[in-house]
Structure formats: structure tokens, C-alpha cells
């Protein structure tokens, strides 16, 4: 056997388990979408794809479903709440993280190392450890059942500051000095020189924050108990405890909750993967 055929055999032998693995990884989600678009109630796992008639009626039903228990609320309300929350967390978080990361990376002032250390130390505190006092504080502030309670605690992140700091450290100092000689203030330099050259890291942080914010569950569960302000993840709990025999619309509901973020991920996958790896290698 010559070298070339051996290589082809090796290639096939390696591709088979990887491809099978991919199929197993995607199977639950393919099954979910199939059930969502299928008119049949039960799709056995082995068929994976819709067996009978294909329909979108499940999506309509899922969208309207919570209305039965909450005086006319639909999934639309939950989507809107989640979008508002996610946009605010992403924009506000990017701003706060980049500002702090910038001065820690580039400026000389008393306490600089200390603040850098503090920002990193927040990574050591698991959310669940602070959940109870956080709730008590939010309650004292009168924020229970407001979107403010969902947004404000997530406006700064140690990981964000850390990644922005690493990024700003790699920017050549001459750039800043030139702007300074032209008489630009620090605020001006930050917003019109430093931020515009930070697009990759902004892309990375946007995807990471969006994913985290869109998928957060326990915190909304604690601070929001008015269905009008439910996030999409909480909205899904309406499906729980239903005596479900129609799996179709349940799966449609889940598909609706997963899809928006999946699209963001597919569009911005390079930023996304880059960000996680950067956090691991430099962290």
C-alpha cells in the first residue's frame, strides 16, 4: 500500500468518529426543531426528522401559550424584556469595562495595581455565593420587579476589564502621545482614538455578554415575580407543570428561546471562540 492510500484511509478513520460525534451532539436539537415543525405528536428519536406533515402552527401556539394564565401576555413580552436587558447589559458593560481596563492598562496613578487585582478577584466569587445579599440590597433599593434589578448588577465584569486591559496594553503608546500633543483630553483620546481601534475585543465581549445575559436564569427567578417583566428563560417555566401531551408546541417554545442567540453565535463565531480562548490563556 502506498503512502497516499494510507493517508486517505487514516483520514476516513478519523472523520467517522468525529462525524458521528457531531451527529450525537446535534441530535437533541435537530429532534427539537423536528418536533416543533411536525404535525405529529411524538417523533421517535431514531427518525430525527419530521415523519408526517410539516406545519408552523406549533410556533403560533407556543407564542400565544402563556396568555391562558397571564391575561393576554405572550412570548413577545418576554422577548422584549430580554432584548432590553441584553442590550443594556452589553452596551453599559462594554463602556464600564473598557473605561476601567483602559486606565489600569495605560495610566500611572496610586492604587493602579490594587484596582487591577480587585477586578480580577471578582472572578473568584461565584454568583451563587452573593445571591442572597444581592437580593437583599436590590430589595432595599426598591428594585424588585424592575428591569433595573436585572441590568445594574451585571454592568461590570472582572473578565471584561481583564480582557480590555490586555488589549489596551498592546496598543502602541505613540498613538496616545500624538493625540495628547494635539491637545486632546483623556476622555477624548479614549472615545475617539482608543475605542475605535478596539473592534475585535468589542466584538468578543459583545458576544460573551450577550450569551451570558440572554441565558441567565437564577437571578431573574429571584428578583422578578411579575410575569409582565419575565425574561424569555423565565417565560419557558410557563411550560413546566403543564400536563403536556402535545410536545410540538413545547419544542417550538424552546426553539424560539435558543434561536436568536444561535444566530448571533454563527454570525460572530470567530470573536466568540477567540474571546473564550483568550480568557483561558491569559487568565
Amino acid at each position, binding site marked *: 500500500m502506498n503512502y497516499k492510500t494510507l493517508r486517505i484511509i*487514516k*483520514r476516513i478513520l*478519523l472523520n467517522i468518529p*468525529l462525524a458521528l*460525534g457531531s451527529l450525537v*451532539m446535534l441530535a*437533541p436539537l435537530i*429532534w427539537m426543531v423536528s418536533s416543533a415543525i411536525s404535525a405529529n405528536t411524538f*417523533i*421517535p*428519536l*431514531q427518525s430525527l426528522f419530521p415523519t408526517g406533515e410539516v406545519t408552523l402552527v406549533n410556533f403560533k401556539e407556543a407564542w400565544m401559550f402563556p396568555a391562558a394564565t397571564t391575561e393576554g401576555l405572550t412570548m413577545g413580552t418576554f422577548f422584549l424584556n430580554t432584548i432590553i436587558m441584553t442590550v443594556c447589559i452589553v452596551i453599559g458593560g462594554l463602556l464600564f469595562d473598557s*473605561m*476601567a481596563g483602559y486606565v489600569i492598562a495605560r*495610566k*500611572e*496613578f496610586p492604587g493602579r495595581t490594587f*484596582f487591577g487585582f*480587585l*477586578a480580577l478577584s*471578582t472572578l*473568584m*466569587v*461565584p454568583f*451563587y*455565593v*452573593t*445571591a*442572597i445579599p*444581592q437580593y*437583599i*440590597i436590590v430589595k432595599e433599593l426598591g428594585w424588585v420587579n424592575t428591569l433595573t434589578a436585572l441590568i*445594574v*448588577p451585571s454592568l*461590570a465584569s*472582572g473578565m471584561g476589564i481583564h480582557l480590555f486591559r490586555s488589549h489596551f496594553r498592546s496598543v502602541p*503608546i505613540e498613538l496616545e*502621545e500624538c493625540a*495628547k500633543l494635539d491637545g486632546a483630553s*483623556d476622555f477624548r483620546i479614549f472615545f475617539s482614538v482608543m475605542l475605535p481601534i478596539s473592534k475585535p475585543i468589542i466584538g468578543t465581549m459583545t458576544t460573551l455578554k450577550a*450569551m451570558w445575559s*440572554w*441565558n441567565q436564569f437564577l437571578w431573574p427567578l429571584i428578583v422578578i415575580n411579575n410575569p409582565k417583566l419575565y425574561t*424569555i428563560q423565565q417565560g*419557558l417555566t410557563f*411550560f413546566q407543570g403543564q400536563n403536556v401531551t402535545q*410536545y410540538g408546541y*413545547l419544542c417550538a*417554545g*424552546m426553539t424560539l*428561546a435558543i434561536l436568536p*442567540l444561535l444566530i448571533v*453565535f*454563527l454570525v460572530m*463565531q470567530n470573536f466568540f*471562540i477567540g474571546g*473564550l*480562548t483568550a480568557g*483561558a490563556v491569559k*487568565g
Partner: protein
Amino acid sequence: MIVASKRERFGYYLFLLPAFVVFTTFIFGPMLYSFYLSLCKYSLVTTNNPQFVGFKNYLDLFKNTQFLTAVKNTMIFTLALVPLTLFGGLLVAMGINSKLIKYKRFYKICYYIPYVSSMVAVSYVFKILFSSRPDAAMNALLAAFGVAPIEWLNSADWAMIIIILLSFWKQLGYVMIIYLGGLLAIPEDVYEAVSLDPINGPTMLTKITLPLLKPTTMFLLVTEVINSFQIFTPVHVMTSGGPGMATTTLVTLLYEKGFKNSNMGQASAIAVIIFFALLLLSIIQNNLDKE
């Protein structure tokens, strides 16, 4: 570095202010408050202020079978999940990293999609997949092979296995991506230098690749243990800790005690115990790293 005037320095603190106000209010403050609350009797239902009771909450916890079961379950979950995901993730990463694989991006996306999907939604999907109805997804698949329907989430043994399976499925892509980053960071000439010697695949793996991946493995070990210790969402959605106490974990118990029974003192004690367990782990990791 440009020397800063006093006024400019004041400006720097303004840059730091927003982030650190958030940290102080929602991380550092609550952290300290947690320690204090764990030494108090406190309920949100009554209007009483926290009442100092010393270490009573901790002593009560260690006598409480619920807590001991939760510790046991969390340990089982962590000890099963972490080695599984690390091993599986490394295997997939090495496969994708091979020069023989062409469609790297495609594979990466396939393995990565579960990680991006909402945990609440996929927990529901698994709940339906593993429904105990004989005609539902997984049981229907088993029936095709002539296996009798299984009770899945209603069975104390299977419930934990399904939660581990779901977490493995969800976390595998993340571990794979991080390992892939680690593999790419190994310089090409290391392998070139080795390939001059007659060395076989397994030796290459144990003597070259794995030792060079040690920092990545350490990072993943710590982050995965921290994540596993905080397992909450799938349990909350799929089993609510049942059947019986079979899937109750530390965080589901914390949620139950704190927000359902309003026993804030005891819930804080659980939080503090989780914190110190994880802190200890990080310290051990740091020391191992230095060796």
C-alpha cells in the same frame, strides 16, 4: 509614560468609578454581608433584623441530612462530570486539530452549539427526550432495539445520570475549544524535533502533548469544578431535586432554603461553605502550578 497632573489623575479615578461602584455594591459588599448573615437568624418574611446566633447555622447544617445529601450529590456530580468532559473535550480537540481533518470549522460549530444554547431550554428538551412515556423519544428508540421502557427522571438512579449526561453534552464544546487553543499554542518545531526520533503515537501523547497541555488542563480543571459545584438550572427544571432527594445539590438547596423557606441565615452558611471549598481548590491549583 506621560506624567499626569493632579487633575488628570482625578480623571483616571472617574474612569474606574462606574465599574467599581457596581463591584462594591453587588460583589464585595454582598460577599462580606454573606459572612455576617451566615452567623445570623434572618427571615425576609418577618420584619425582624438579623439576629446574631454564632455558628448555629453551620452546626445545624452538619447535622442536617438534607445538607449532607446535597454535599454527596454535588460531589458525585462533580467527580463524574469533570473527568468525563476533560477527557472527551481533549479527544475531540485532538481529532479536530489533526492535519488529516479538512472541515475543522464545521466540526467546531457542531460540538460548540450546545454550549451556546440556553440551559433552561435544553433542560426541557432533555426532559421530554427522557420522558417515561413508552412512546416518547428515548423510550421509542430503545423499543426499536427491543429494550423495555425506562422510568428515566422518575428513577433515583437514572435522574442523576441524565443530569450528568446533559451537563456533559452542554459543556463538551467549551472544553474542546479551550483544548484546541492549547494545542494550537504548542509550537510546530516541538513535533518536528521529535519526529526525527523513531517515536510512536502513544509515547508522543504522554511524553510531549499532555505535559505541554498541563496549564490548559489545570485551567479547565478549576473552571469546570467551579461550574459543577454550582449546578442548578437543569436540576431546577428537570427534577426539582427529586425523586426524593436524589438530585438535590448545594445550590438547589441554597435556593430552596433561602428563597422558598426564607431561611436566609442557613442559606448564607451554605453559600460561605461553597465559597471556601472553591477558594481552597484555587489555592491548591496555584501551588501545583508553581511546582
